[in-house]
């Protein structure tokens, strides 16, 4: 059974005159596998990520067809709580992902929403911070962090939910070299833990992380490297 699967996904934004951005796209990611999606700017890579995470059509409107499955369960029939604990999404811009004064608050937000007890939250916060090598930043104010550190904290905030699927939308694009190395290590560690990882990445630098590579062009996805 695939961890994440998108079947026959088509999408068009109403404001673009109904012109299709994605047409009958099929993608899948197995447990413990890292899949990279690449393609030119504006072809719909982020849109595909949003559809696979359920953000489209729940939060962003658009004409979407096809089905998304998490471990064989249709996303359409899953509650928001189930979606949040199954799939974690890391976006490109760290500034729009942090909204609490301190790192600890930021990491606690997701587990609090899922009504986890305090000892469990504490354990998850510790683990997530250790994963991104930022244990000593627990009580630091997020505004004082560099862009790379903020992105690592945003990743830790996603990891504190312990999702079984990770979707990373150009997560490396604003990182310094030290943060790139930490995020790469985190991705490898998550793979070893059996998480399914779907990431949008155009840089050749990170191809080694991938088990398979998809290319998106003219609304179609094709597997270029297996």
């Amino acid at each position: 059974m695939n961890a994440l699967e998108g079947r026959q996904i088509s999408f068009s934004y109403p404001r673009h005159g109904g012109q299709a951005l994605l047409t009958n796209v099929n993608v899948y990611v197995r447990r413990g596998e890292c899949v990279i999606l690449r393609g030119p700017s504006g072809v719909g890579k982020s849109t595909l990520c949003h559809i696979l995470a359920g953000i489209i059509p729940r939060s962003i409107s658009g004409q979407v067809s096809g089905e998304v499955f998490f471990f064989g369960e249709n996303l359409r029939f899953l509650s928001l709580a189930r979606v949040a604990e199954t799939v974690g999404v890391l976006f490109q811009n760290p500034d729009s992902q942090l909204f609490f004064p301190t790192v600890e608050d930021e990491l606690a937000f997701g587990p609090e929403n899922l009504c986890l007890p305090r000892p469990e939250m504490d354990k998850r916060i510790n683990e997530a911070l250790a994963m991104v090598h930022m244990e000593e930043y627990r009580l630091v104010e997020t505004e004082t962090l560099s862009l790379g550190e903020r992105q690592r904290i945003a990743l830790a905030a996603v990891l504190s939910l312990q999702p079984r699927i990770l979707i990373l939308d150009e997560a490396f694009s604003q990182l310094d070299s030290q943060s790139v190395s930490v995020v790469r290590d985190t991705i490898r560690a998550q793979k070893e833990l059996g998480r399914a990882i779907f990431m949008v990445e155009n840089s050749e630098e990170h191809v080694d992380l991938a088990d398979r590579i998809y290319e998106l062009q003219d609304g179609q996805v094709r597997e270029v490297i297996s």
Partner: protein
Amino acid sequence: MKRADPRVKLLWVLLCTTGALVFFRPMWMLGLTLFSLGGTLLFGVTLQALGRRLRGFLPLALVILALHILFVRAGNPLVIIRGYPVLYSGGVMRGATTLLRFFVILCSAAVMARENTRRVLTALTKLGISYLFSFMLMIALRFIPSFSTSFSDALIALQLRGVELKKIPFGQKIRLYKDLVLPVVADAVVKSKELAIVMEARGFGALPTRTSYLDVRMTFADWVLTCILFSLGLLSFGFYYLFG
């Protein structure tokens, strides 16, 4: 008192700001100002930090003082030029009272700005205020600086393109600012949309209830302080209405 429970600080802020709105007599305002200043320092705000906050409001405060002095014609004339009274005691007193009112409100803002917003959020929730409302308030307060940063970024971008703001006539400058407002507002809307998506992706609103990692508890000292503030509030407002 620096680590006092946010609920105690909120009560203190409530007393100070209510007093600032209710008291009109100069001596009462002076008393409230001293009470506010004392509380501000005890709650851990340094004089330097308060001074920095006041400096930003100084031009506005001076304008308000000048307007009161010039336009309030009450009390005894203090300065008479060629038989025409230009300065009245009532105007000076009213101006001074308004300045003190500003000071009290700034003191309250300084105390709350020093407090961790998450602690305030938890305290408000414990007071029975809906988490959603408190959270929205917190996010809105965090958005204000980002809004002003976007506006100053837009101004810097304009200046980098060769527009010298200092040399532009006032009317044109106002038109320029008006044109900048729309993209800045649009940027804020985009940011808020991104924020909403991230919050939802992390399960916000997924369940009817939520737990809280941070806990705030009233200590014995907090209860004592609350009792003192309550008594002080009741006494002072009572006295003001009866004898003020």
